[in-house]
């Protein structure tokens, strides 16, 4: 049963990746919205906050005046009121869609477990906050839809056993709804979003360089789409609320108000149980046993003798797992990296950032300042030396590939005897000097295969790799080593053909390069 669930998840993940690749064709991998779902959700939240503040300034927050003041937005010049109102509503819809897709994507990638359990668990309550905020917003309009939602919510809450008086009694007659009750509506619609913002702070607390907005072209595209939608398909009020009548026909926002019809189609008790079970399931997912339990990744280890306190690992760590502390055995002012095991995901990006990871150091055993025990740089260097020495081709190629990206071995399974594959925990684990080392140790060309832009399993690995190889980030690949003999390819899972094509391109290029016979072919290994 559990195996079936896993294979179902894997099948769904494969489908998701196909969808992402399909959207890459239109947006390009760096701007693919499916890889920016969290920041799209944040964009929707900022749109809601900005439009909400403006609406709060202009609307009358009283029972008698709310409907009229909101309805009068449609008479603003240049359709500005329509735009403002539509943006507010449609941004809420976009937030729900982005949030749902973000949740699904993270689950499909297995990000609910391990170190990433914290953002998962802190994300679950945010779902509730989003829906409470959204539903509360309909009440403020106090039209028939708001009336229906307020009464339905009160009846739903009335199923809870701890309430002495049914909340729905507040909506028995029009006279029962006063400005005091309306103040509660306002409090819910303003207070819960503040809680949401506070919860978001927890949600992203263990991440560094969180994108508060999607990339600019994507932001522009989404905002323009929502603005056009607001103008083309304006949000209108239903007739004013009248508690003596049940609205016969409602244009329900199914993305935000689906709970009400579900409750009336079943029962309040059923939906409470359903919501509770869903919340419990989401909260329990990180703790459920796994049929094929994968060992927790080993965390980065600092070697004080080889750490010079340069802070590059601290700067590059995507999970804020590295901090800098005073070096215990060195002069005042010198720093030492320190790894928080509870935060480290074991990606190795820190090892790739460490200047001591250079394979050119003439030591028998290469020990770097910060390293991954499961795949240390010394083992990487030794493997590279062995593979190049054993490679029979006149112009051997080396592929540095990521464990989570394209499957290099299967991509190059046939007709690629000239290729040596070196697997990494993440492309970001590769110290750029390894590229130059490979070239000077006999490789005619080097391919670095990182995940598609924005698709790194560890958030920033592909970006840091590209910047290091292009000289924009330290440690950088020396100018002398850059050029036609190095190929960087962004190839995620399923992109085997792309990697094979990149290797073929490089193979053809290096065939045309005349190797200088006077240069020493191999480095003298220690």
């Amino acid at each position, binding site marked *: 049963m559990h195996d079936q669930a896993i294979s179902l998840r894997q099948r769904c993940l494969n489908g998701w990746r196909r969808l992402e690749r399909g*959207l890459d*064709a*239109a*947006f*390009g991998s*760096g*701007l693919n919205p499916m890889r920016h779902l969290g920041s799209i959700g944040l964009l929707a939240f900022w749109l809601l906050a900005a439009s909400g503040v403006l609406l709060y300034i202009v609307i009358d927050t009283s029972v008698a005046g709310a409907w009229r003041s909101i309805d009068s937005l449609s008479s603003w010049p240049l359709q500005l009121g329509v735009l403002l109102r539509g943006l507010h*509503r*449609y941004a809420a*819809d*976009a937030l729900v*869609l982005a949030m749902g897709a973000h949740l699904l994507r993270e689950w499909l990638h297995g990000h609910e477990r391990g170190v990433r359990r914290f953002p998962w668990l802190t994300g679950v309550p945010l779902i509730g906050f989003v829906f409470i905020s959204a539903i509360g917003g309909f009440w403020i309009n106090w039209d028939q839809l708001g009336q*229906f939602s307020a009464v339905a919510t009160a*009846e739903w809450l*009335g199923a809870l056993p701890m309430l*002495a*008086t*049914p909340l*729905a*009694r507040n909506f*028995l*007659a029009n006279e029962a709804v006063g400005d005091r009750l309306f103040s509660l509506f306002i409090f819910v619609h303003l207070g819960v979003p503040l809680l949401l913002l506070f919860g978001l702070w927890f949600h992203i607390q263990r991440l560094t*360089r969180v994108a508060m907005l999607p990339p600019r*072209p994507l932001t522009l*595209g*989404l905002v*323009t*789409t*929502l603005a*056009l*939608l607001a103008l*083309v*398909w304006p949000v209108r009020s239903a007739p004013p609320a009248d*508690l*003596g*009548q*049940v*609205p*016969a*026909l*409602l*244009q*329900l*926002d*199914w*993305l*935000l108000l689906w709970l009400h*019809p579900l409750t*009336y189609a079943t029962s309040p008790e059923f939906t409470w149980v359903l919501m509770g079970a869903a919340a419990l399931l989401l909260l329990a997912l990180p703790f459920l046993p796994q049929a094929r339990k994968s060992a927790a990744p080993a965390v980065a280890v600092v070697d004080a003798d080889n750490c010079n306190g340069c802070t590059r690992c601290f*700067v590059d760590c995507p999970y804020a797992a590295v901090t800098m502390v005073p070096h215990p055995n060195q002069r005042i002012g010198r720093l030492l990296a320190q790894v928080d095991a509870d935060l480290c995901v074991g990606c190795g990006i820190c090892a790739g950032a460490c200047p001591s990871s250079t394979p050119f150091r003439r030591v028998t055993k290469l020990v770097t300042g910060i390293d991954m025990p499961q795949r240390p740089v010394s083992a990487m260097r030794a493997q590279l030396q062995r593979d190049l020495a054993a490679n029979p081709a006149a112009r051997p190629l080396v592929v540095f590939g990521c464990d989570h990206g394209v499957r290099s071995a299967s991509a190059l399974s046939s007709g690629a005897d000239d290729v040596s594959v070196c697997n990494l925990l993440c492309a970001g684990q590769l110290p750029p000097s390894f590229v130059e080392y490979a070239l000077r140790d006999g490789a005619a060309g080097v391919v670095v295969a990182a995940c598609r*832009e924005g698709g790194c399993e560890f958030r920033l690995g592909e*970006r840091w790799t*590209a*910047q290091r190889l*292009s*000289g*924009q*980030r*330290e440690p*950088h690949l020396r100018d002398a080593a850059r050029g036609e003999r190095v190929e960087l390819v962004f190839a995620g899972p399923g992109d085997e053909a792309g990697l094979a094509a990149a290797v073929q391109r490089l193979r053809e290029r290096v065939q045309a390069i005349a190797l200088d016979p006077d240069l020493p072919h191999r480095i003298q290994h220690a």
Partner: protein
Amino acid sequence: MPEISDRPVRKTPAIGPGRWLGQLLLYGLFALVIGVFSQWPPYHHLQPDQALIKLSFTHVGKPVGDCRVPGAEELAKLAPHMRPTEICPRERSPIMVELDINGVNRLRRSAEPGGLSKDGASAMYERVLVPAGEQRIAVRYSDDVRARATPYHRETTVKLVPGQVLVIDFNAEKGGITIQ
């Protein structure tokens, strides 16, 4: 030494007409999903020929037993300033309510008093869907479990239009059961 940069390395390649069209279609699809499901399909909360009766009250029932005058021996055990003239049970009666529509019983419920000592108000909120049109409504209401208690009773004929909400409440100050 180059400065550390967070910027993406690759500039976004020039977008060809195919990609423009693809993006346009996908943004359009996104807008369509939001636009459609933010108001469609329309929702009918009630059938076109239905009305709604809401039976709701919050009311403190009568004590479950009679008050009694304490005996002299009982009073003697108490300090002089603590001697009551009568002792009443704290617990309140549950409230029984019945609703008949056109002679057919549609609701029979008992609302327990609130509080750990069952000395609080009983409350109820029930929805009963009925066909629109003329309805003979009879409500019986008892807030006293003692044998001599006489239930409140009210019977009336109402004409309900589709979608109308009829509220049946209890207000002792207004004589008991109210229908409006």
